[in-house]
């Protein structure tokens, strides 16, 4: 279990583990369940809203039968549309909510959306299953008391590597950021925010409020390291690793866990300095046409059995303590999905620090790439 320290930040790539971890579908079958005994807290029958719901989600980021079961339980038809990244979600909503009832932004974008007044406060009296969440996820620094977002999954950035090509586990960010040991075999995630915050973490600072005086040092470090880096990847670090183009990548745990199923020689770890933890949350955007259905749906997703089916499909870490109890050993003991507690203790949420900082960070990385 993660000791999710309060703090925050964003931006994953949810190519589901579905395909790759399809093998574990066998486990999912064992857990398939009818809804008869399920969750007395799910209200059946109709409210005064139209029996529909627009769910805007990441690709393959929900259980196979989850939506059908929700319809069975409540009569509400869920129409799911997909976004590829938080920028797309934000761009869609900034021009006015086109009719979504529930969205799944990453924590940094929960902050952005809240500051832009694009999401609305939740009515916790309609979400009794909230109590199922592990205590450390019931309140976080980016959303105290979870007024705006209900945690759905969490994820961490770390090092994905090819075991046969490294001299022991690459247990420190140094091998990626400041060393020629793996020259030409490193790929870094090309997200300005993440690169800068992780460099600060490596240098012993917090990922939050990175001091301005540190930025030139970070810039110089990356410019020096460029000759050892093969490529800055976008969302496909796990593919580069799997294809053998590089042997070490900066990536999300879920994405590496996915390719680990295809290739035994791959592994994932969180370096000893710690890393950035992120969390995707369920939110209701401003102007949602069916807010009551939205609350019912969020509550439904927090049900232990429903959550277990989701986790079995998508294989991302769950913040739901009751779900975890239902999950098989192969999930709970997977160190790619759940890095060891001592490492998780050093993880922090990043923070959205305003437009000016985003712009400054982006320009820093533009300079690194142009150097």
């Amino acid at each position: 279990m993660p000791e999710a320290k309060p703090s925050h930040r964003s931006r994953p790539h949810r190519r589901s583990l579905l395909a790759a971890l399809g093998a574990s579908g066998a486990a999912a079958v064992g857990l398939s369940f009818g809804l008869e005994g399920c969750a007395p807290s799910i209200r059946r029958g109709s409210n005064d809203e139209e029996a529909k719901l627009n769910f805007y989600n990441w690709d393959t980021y929900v259980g196979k039968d989850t939506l059908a079961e929700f319809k069975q339980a409540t009569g509400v038809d869920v129409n799911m549309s997909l976004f590829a990244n938080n920028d797309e979600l934000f761009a869609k909503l900034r021009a006015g909510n086109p009719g979504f009832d529930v969205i799944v932004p990453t924590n940094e974008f929960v902050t952005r959306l809240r500051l832009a007044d694009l999401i609305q406060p939740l009515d916790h009296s309609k979400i009794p299953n909230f109590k199922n969440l592990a205590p450390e996820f019931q309140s976080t620094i980016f959303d105290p008391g979870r007024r705006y977002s209900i945690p759905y999954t969490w994820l961490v950035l770390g090092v994905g590597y090819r075991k046969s090509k490294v001299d022991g586990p690459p247990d420190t960010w140094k091998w990626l950021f400041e060393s020629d040991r793996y020259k030409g075999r490193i790929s870094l995630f090309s997200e300005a925010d993440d690169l800068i915050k992780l460099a600060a973490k490596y240098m012993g600072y917090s990922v939050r409020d990175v001091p301005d005086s540190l930025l030139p040092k970070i810039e110089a470090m990356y410019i020096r390291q460029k000759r050892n880096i093969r490529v800055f990847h976008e969302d496909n670090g796990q593919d580069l690793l799997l294809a053998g183009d590089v042997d070490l990548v900066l990536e999300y745990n879920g994405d590496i866990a996915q390719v680990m199923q295809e290739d035994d020689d791959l592994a994932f770890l969180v370096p000893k300095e710690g890393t950035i933890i992120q969390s995707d949350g369920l939110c209701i955007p401003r102007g949602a046409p069916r807010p009551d259905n939205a609350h019912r749906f969020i509550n439904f997703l927090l049900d232990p059995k429903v959550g277990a089916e989701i986790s079995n499909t998508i294989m991302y870490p769950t913040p739901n303590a009751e779900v975890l109890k239902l999950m098989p050993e192969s999930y709970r003991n997977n160190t790619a999905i759940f890095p060891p507690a001592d490492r998780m203790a050093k993880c922090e949420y990043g923070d959205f620090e305003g437009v000016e900082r985003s712009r400054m960070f982006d320009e820093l990385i533009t300079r690194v790439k142009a150097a």
Partner: protein
Amino acid sequence: MAEHTQDSWRKSPGLFASLLSAPTLFLFAFLLAPLAIVWGYSFGHNQGLTDIVVDGTFANYAHALNPLYLSILFKSFLFAAVTTVICLLVGFPVALAITFARPSTKPWLLLLIMLPFWTNLLIRTYALMAVLRTQGYINGFLGLLWSLLARSLDALHIGRLAAFTPLDLLYNNFAVILGLVYVQLPFMVLPLYSAMDRLDRSLLEASLDLGAGHVRTILQIVAPLAMPGIASGVMVTLIPSLGAFLTPELLGGVDSQMIANVIERQFKSANDWPFGAALSFLLMYMTFAAIALQALLGSKRRGG
């Protein structure tokens, strides 16, 4: 022909206007209006997270003229220019060959040139990655040859070869240029072909009869006559290459950032639309300048 069309629209302006109204409306609503909005953004600034105030500021342009962005623009231009030159060198003989092919094979050759358009650029780029990557098809083939060679040398007791080192073909500037040439080549070949196909063959025969060799005929007769085709081929290759975004992103290495990649980040992660708009329009102004220059040179040539 031109006279005739002009006459007919003078005779029935109503019909002409009604036929033209739909495309004009389309052009205004879906091209010029959005462009005008983005152009407006380039003179604005962010207010909060979602609002852009257009206040006529030139700050975005001033920022875009910072040496950092100018150097990236220059580098993008360099990539585009090298791509264009290679396309011209490769495309010219191809177009010439199609021009002189048998009439029955011509449509097939043209089809071959256009075939890649039937597949999405993203898919073609991923295919190229599969060919170039460390354990891709080229390196796989070379590795196979190498191991055969090593085994035969070993069998003949001539010597031992070191293990095969895969070539670094992907994630560098070479891969970006290769990708750009691959994408842009048809755009060079088609205008060249259409210019050369219209050549008066008797001029070529005269040149050959008068003792000029084939090379000299091509350089001194064909090339000058095909100049309009060359100029438009250069334009349609150079301009899209300058704004290439996908190719450097997927095939490039740590030094392959082009201006379109920077612009994309302004609209996404940096969330600075006014600056992104200013960078896009800087590129647009340069393109307009290039087209104007081409038109100017063209009219001079025609004027004698």
